């Protein structure tokens, strides 16, 4: 009994450590865009594929989608997630023809390779992410 408890305890600790590791490394790859230059550098000129999430504070579906995106991107080491607040980046909104939020575009090597508008189910998001990853390998 004691033996099992101990190994279970150790396993839990290891699991937590690993989770925290990936969470913190994931947090490093969550980019909150603050300027057009930053967008250029960290998205268009990025070595990694980037998923750009157009977000607004007043948009309820955005508050559901953004965390979900963060969760799903976690499992893909090479993909970054950039969040753009549509209220503060009118030019980016115009350039990418964002007419509604949430809007998600996938950028690889400076090219938009995929896009979806509105709150979609996990399958669609997974497909978009996998498409990005596949092209990587």
């Amino acid at each position, binding site marked *: 009994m004691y033996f099992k408890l101990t190994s279970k305890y150790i396993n839990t600790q290891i699991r937590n450590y690993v989770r925290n590791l990936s969470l913190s490394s994931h947090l490093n790859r969550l980019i909150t865009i603050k300027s057009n230059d930053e967008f250029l550098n960290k998205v268009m000129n990025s070595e990694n594929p980037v998923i750009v999430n157009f977000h*607004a504070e*007043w948009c309820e579906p955005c508050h559901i989608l953004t965390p979900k995106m963060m969760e799903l991107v976690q499992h893909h080491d090479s993909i970054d997630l950039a969040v753009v607040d549509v209220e503060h980046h*009118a030019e980016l*909104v*115009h350039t990418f023809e964002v*007419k509604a939020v949430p809007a998600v575009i996938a950028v690889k090597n400076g090219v938009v390779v995929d896009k979806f508008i509105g709150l979609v189910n996990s399958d669609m998001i997974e497909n978009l992410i996998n498409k990005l990853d596949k092209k990587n390998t």
Partner: protein
Amino acid sequence: MAPIGDGPDYDLVVIGGGSGGLAAAKEAASLGAKVAVLDYVTPTPKGTRWGLGGTCVNVGCIPKKLMHQAALLGDAIEDSQSYGWQFSNPENIKHDWGILRQAVQNHVKSVNWVTRVELRDKKVDYINGLGLFKDAHTVQTTTKQGERTITSKYFLIAVGGRPRYPNIPGATEYGITSDDVFSLEDSPGKTLVIGAGYIGLECAGFLRGLGYDATVMVRSVVLRGFDQQMAGLISAAMEERGVKFLRKCVPKSIEKAIDGKLLVKWTSENGQEFGDTFDTVLFAIGRRALTREMQVEKAGVQVAGDGEKIDAVNEQTNVPHIYAVGDVLYKKPELTPVAIHAGRLLARRLFGNSTVQMDYENVATTVFSPLEYGCVGISEEVALQRYGEDNVEIYHAYYKPTEFFIPQRSIAHCYIKVIAKRGGDQKVLGMHFIGPQAGEVIQGFAAAMKCNLTMNALMSTVGIHPTIAEEFTRINVTKRSGKDPNPASCCS
């Protein structure tokens, strides 16, 4: 920014980014014109401000309808129990103002954003500054970037209006208006609405529906300008739901009471003084056009007899290249669809070789009181005055919505009235409806009236059953006959 001496900066400069202004701007741009829209919101005495879109989007139609819906849903929850829905604690169902306020404001902000995106897409320049006329060909404005002067071939005055405050002590310090109510941080609590036009009634109506103690103070009549028999039924329906009415009363002052609430003093018809405390005092005593703020006199534009609205002919002011649309127009319905339609038609005439003028007659409208009132055409008073009692036939009926039986909702004020010319096919002059979904019911009949609807045609229309709109196809009792307008039963 514009090349010097190369002609005006724009083909059209629209002052006011509301329903009328934006519709005209977008239509003009789509016809190839170079357009700029100036929009600016002077904060209310309370400090409330809002984004692009005008009154309708921010502090009018949109938030009003959402809050009206919130109140109706409260009724629905109550009624649902008699239809079998079960709640663990039905007596404890209450409403959270903060959640409603946030949801409404989120929606308003999303509309502000879409509006801005649309303008950018249609290549309309949006300037967030208060536009003032410097002379008949120049508008000046101050934005965050500094001062600017703008010249244009045409100008469109679409500045709309703002709520009035009365000249009594404490009005601006302690009172709010419809400009503030939809974004109130704290729940309104016990509210006094001063004013019984449609804005006052709608506000008192949804506040009561959400569970607040609501009182309407009426100076003279309820819904002035509307059919007064219908107005009486609407206020009776509201009283039945618990809205209190202080009739023929005039407010005298508002001050802070010792407990922090607002003490309002008023005089009644016979001069007696009264007082009571409220958490919120909302003035809905009328709206004023914002022509003074934009210095129209500097452009030579004349205002109408009331000193502020513009008496335009086919939306053209006395200065040929300066036009006006929307609430700022004298003796035209102050409604969003009217402004939008007129704005679009004007843009087509200016830039699209169109000759179609706006038809301001027979515009349908709805008062979104708890029991709604929809109408199109003229009131009974206007009909009698215009044609004489002998030449007018008034059909009327009370009716019982099927859905009201089970929860035992009051049908006392469910009433319709059709005013027609007497003799011949009996052309319909006005249709009036009180009941749920009044706006939805009346809309189609507005199209029918545009086609010169007659009683003959109306009575030979087969109704959809069971609906409340079908009552218009069953109507047959005239006021003249003196017969009982109450229904016997359904399906007969």
